């Protein structure tokens, strides 16, 4: 996210700041508390005090000036972390990654992450949050409250605000976790007034005058400063003021207009102009001036102006170390703006805003350019600014910034401009809110019909249409749209182009032109040596998916492993997580559950950073693995995490998947009642989207449950449905899902007694599965399938592969029979050392002859030992021996 560095710089005022030792001592005394609150209206010297203290204190410190732009959780956190990182560059990195995810995790997760990472900092530091009253978003207050409830050890925050924030301050006061400086503390005492005025006016101030001024201004330092400025010019005090009974703001306004009128006209003019700006620099001031100079006057040199303001200490605040950026004190600016509105026409003000907007836009400060254009009432310019910068920002993968610009734009304009609508679509895509796309796309197309829009935007529309079609399984339309998109989107817009290339390849695969897709991707990979890491990982990812869908497992692995390596090198966990998922999925499909488990677990360490669908499917797979591995507690635990996670997304699709997983697990446990309950009540959302390669597909689980139920009606329903799915996926060239569907169908036929059809279907499935070594879909349906598979062996079909399937069945059976417990159980009659040696070799599946050679004993001796081993373990064969030994903890479970 683009950071305005000026928000992070400690504002420095001029040299004539009165030192207030008692307040500095107070800060010193309480600095080790989690929170110091400084709460008073504008102009009481709050920021000055904090800044002064920081200058003299020994601790590392950071400053963050808040404003309306930081009034949302994402922006606030971005700047907060940037402030912390300005002292400790490596802090809060995991929380920072959350800021790049499609959606922010729920607040408890976010705040815990932040608090934990802040807690890792082992050095005391001060963080000042200035102008906290600009924060209105409740979530930000909530985050802050959490922070204060569990304050990190070495984080000390100074909160400067004009109004007490809605945090549980009483609670903090009671627990003595905070100190505060309030109006009464900040008021100048008489001695301070005297000292202040003496310093500024360089002459003695008598007690009476000091007393009068203290009373007049109510100890408000800004009033005093204004008084001093006025007095400097006059040479003396206007005693009229001291006598009147008007209130402070009269003094303020009176003095202020005096000071203004004392300035040379050119400067006065300039001050009024500059008052429209939140921050200014010399070139910007220049841009605001009339191009030909104010009627006959000498053109003001902006640098001179800044110098004058600094010399006179006219409320100017330096924003950076390079002396480029400044701003006025808020109050001074308010007063100037009032004057501007009173003495200048609306047209003049509009012109000023327009010029400011143009300058900011030309210099790359897009958000401010937009704000000023809108203040000038020039919505067209604002829209154009977004339009011009949209591509560049998306190219840099900074969708959040685009989203920020959109929040500044008024709703009506957003609905009318193709540029802004397209921006909204990209933002929705980034948030994975796919369901929200169609209505906006329609709106865009309606406008596109009426007006001429540029080719690139047409290309983007084509891309989104193609993307939506792909997800609906409309391969031909998808390919056509995406092909057009590639013709229309320019090379420079590499983000949109990259996405279009990826989805075009996927669409080609969907319509059966896989070779063309693969070749295209490989060509692009070869050509993009210098591309950014993320583009290459996307291309490789597409390759990986295409091969996976085609059940070309080894090729898929090659692509994904390469992608993972690059993603990990560039530290793009999001891309890495896709690669991890596919690798885990492949292990799962090959029934290499021990390898799949750690990969899925790794993805789920950070479910909020990865693609939501990946997280959900990983939960499902992991739960299944635990259940299969006879660890029902862990399975339930994982299921619970999944249900919570899915519920919290609020997405009905994901919630449906989580419930499907629950039913699936029940089935695996043998709890048919639960599963049937789900079947009858489940709202399976006529899920028209494609099944891809997901492990948990509710529509298929429904068929699983029907088949498990086994009634005539259920079986027929299941088979009719699966038949339909088979054709759908065949049409989509989705081989991976077809295997599972065919395997299920075979089981269904068998239960119906239609053995020949069962075997034929199974044979077909095996044909598809063998090249990739995909075994899991055959194990899943259980013993019915084992029986069918054995019959295939008799028919001499793919004996090697079928043999592997049967081995997997046996292993699973053994695991079920001999579940690994966590407590090692010693045998009544323990194995001898020699017997252990032999058992270890048996575990490696060594033959008797080989064992004999290895141990320098005769095969008969081996046989004798083996028999003893079986007897002691109470088993009948080598496989059982190994399984039971592992279960008892005699052998390590590898």
């Amino acid at each position, binding site marked *: 996210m683009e950071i305005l560095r000026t928000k992070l710089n400690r504002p420095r005022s001029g040299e004539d700041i009165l030192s207030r030792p008692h307040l500095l001592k107070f800060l010193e005394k309480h600095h080790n508390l989690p929170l110091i609150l400084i709460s008073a*209206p504008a102009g009481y010297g709050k920021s000055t005090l904090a800044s002064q203290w920081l200058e003299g204190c020994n601790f590392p410190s950071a400053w963050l000036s808040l404003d309306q732009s930081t009034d949302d959780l994402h922006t606030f956190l971005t700047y907060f972390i940037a402030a912390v990182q300005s002292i400790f560059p490596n802090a809060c990195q995991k929380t920072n990654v959350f800021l790049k995810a499609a959606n922010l995790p729920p607040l408890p997760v976010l705040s815990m992450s932040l608090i934990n990472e802040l807690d890792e900092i082992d050095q005391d530091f001060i963080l000042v949050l200035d102008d906290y009253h600009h924060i209105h978003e409740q979530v930000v207050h909530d985050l802050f409250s959490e922070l204060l409830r569990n304050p990190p050890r070495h984080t000390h925050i100074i909160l400067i605000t*004009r109004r007490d924030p809605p945090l549980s301050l009483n609670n903090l006061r009671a627990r003595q976790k905070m100190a505060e400086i309030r109006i009464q503390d900040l008021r100048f005492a008489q001695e301070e007034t005297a000292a202040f005025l003496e310093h500024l006016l360089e002459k003695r101030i008598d007690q009476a005058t000091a007393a009068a001024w203290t009373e007049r201004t109510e100890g408000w330092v800004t009033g005093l400063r204004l008084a001093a400025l006025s007095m400097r010019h006059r040479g003396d005090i206007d005693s009229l003021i001291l006598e009147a*009974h008007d*209130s402070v703001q009269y003094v303020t306004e009176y003095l202020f207009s005096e000071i203004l009128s004392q300035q040379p006209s050119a400067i006065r003019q300039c001050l009024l102009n500059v008052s429209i700006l939140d921050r200014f620099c010399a070139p910007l001031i220049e841009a605001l001036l009339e191009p030909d100079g104010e009627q006959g006057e000498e053109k003001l040199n902006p640098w001179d102006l800044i110098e004058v303001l600094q010399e006179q200490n006219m409320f100017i605040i330096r924003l950076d170390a390079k002396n480029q950026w400044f701003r006025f004190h808020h109050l001074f600016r308010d007063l100037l703006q009032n004057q501007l509105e009173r003495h200048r026409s609306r047209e003049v003000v509009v012109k000023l805003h327009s010029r400011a907007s143009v300058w900011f836009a030309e210099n790359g400060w897009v958000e401010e350019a937009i704000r000023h254009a809108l203040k000038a009432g020039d919505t067209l310019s604002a829209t154009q600014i977004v339009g011009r910068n949209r591509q560049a920002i998306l190219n840099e993968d900074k969708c959040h910034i685009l989203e920020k610009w959109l929040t500044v734009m008024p709703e009506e304009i957003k609905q009318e401009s193709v540029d802004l609508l397209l921006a909204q679509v990209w933002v929705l895509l980034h948030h994975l809110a796919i369901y929200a796309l169609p209505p906006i796309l329609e709106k865009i197309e309606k406008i596109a019909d009426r007006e001429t829009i540029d080719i690139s935007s047409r290309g983007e529309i084509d891309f989104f249409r193609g993307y939506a079609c792909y997800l609906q399984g409309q391969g031909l339309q998808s390919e056509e749209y995406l092909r057009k998109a590639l013709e229309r989107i320019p090379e420079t817009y590499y983000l949109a182009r990259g996405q279009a290339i990826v989805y075009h390849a996927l669409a080609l695969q969907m319509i059966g032109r896989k070779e063309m897709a693969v070749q295209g991707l490989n060509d692009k990979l070869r050509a993009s040596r210098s591309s950014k890491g993320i583009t290459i990982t996307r291309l490789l990812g597409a390759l990986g998916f295409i091969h996976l869908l085609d059940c070309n497992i080894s090729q898929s692995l090659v692509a994904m492993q390469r992608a993972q390596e690059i993603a990990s090198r560039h530290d793009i966990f999001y891309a890495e997580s896709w690669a991890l998922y596919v690798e885990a999925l492949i292990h799962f499909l090959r029934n290499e559950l021990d390898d799949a488990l750690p990969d899925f677990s790794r993805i789920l360490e950070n479910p909020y950073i990865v693609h939501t669908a990946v997280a959900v499917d990983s939960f499902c797979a992991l739960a299944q693995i635990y259940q299969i591995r006879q660890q029902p507690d862990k399975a339930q635990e994982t299921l619970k995490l999944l249900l919570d996670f899915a519920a919290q997304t609020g997405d009905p699709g994901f919630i449906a998947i989580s419930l499907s997983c629950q039913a699936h697990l029940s089935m695996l446990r043998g709890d048919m009642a639960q599963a049937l309950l789900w079947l009858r009540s489940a709202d399976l959302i006529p899920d028209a989207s494609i099944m891809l390669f997901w492990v948990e597909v509710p529509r298929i689980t429904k068929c699983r449950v029907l088949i498990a139920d086994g009634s005539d009606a259920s079986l027929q329903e299941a088979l009719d449905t699966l038949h339909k799915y088979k054709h759908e996926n065949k049409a989509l060239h989705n081989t991976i899902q077809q295997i599972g569907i065919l395997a299920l169908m075979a089981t269904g036929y068998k239960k119906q007694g239609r053995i020949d059809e069962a075997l034929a279907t199974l044979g077909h499935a095996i044909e598809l599965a063998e090249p990739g070594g995909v075994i899991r879909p055959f194990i899943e349906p259980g013993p019915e399938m084992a029986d069918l598979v054995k019959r295939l062996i008799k028919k001499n079909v793919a004996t090697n592969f079928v043999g592997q399937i049967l081995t997997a069945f046996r292993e699973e059976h053994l695991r079920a029979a001999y579940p690994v417990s966590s407590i090692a159980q010693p045998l009544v009659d323990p194995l001898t050392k020699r017997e252990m040696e032999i058992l270890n070799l048996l575990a490696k599946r060594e033959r008797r002859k080989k064992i004999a050679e290895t141990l320098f004993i005769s095969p008969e001796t081996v046989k004798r030992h083996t028999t003893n081993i079986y007897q002691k373990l109470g088993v009948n064969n080598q496989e059982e021996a190994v399984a039971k030994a592992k279960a008892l903890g005699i052998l390590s479970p590898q």
Partner: protein
Amino acid sequence: MQETFNWKGIKLETPATYRIVVQGCLDQSWSDRLAGMAIVSQSKGKDAPVTTLTGRLRDQAELSGVLNSLYELHLPILKVEMLERDE
């Protein structure tokens, strides 16, 4: 949670006439910046003077704005009262 439609009362968006009393003086010229409220100041002899602002505010947001402005003008609030509301 009780349904609110049974109650007779105002909502955040209900316009209403408010009277705000603050300590201090305020000139009628401030009316523009304070939601057009009528401003009357009164001196109270030895005690601090008091200003009464009266006017129709279109909603709670406008009221909040006025109260905030009075705070920024350093005028302590003595009383805030709703006089009349739109039906």
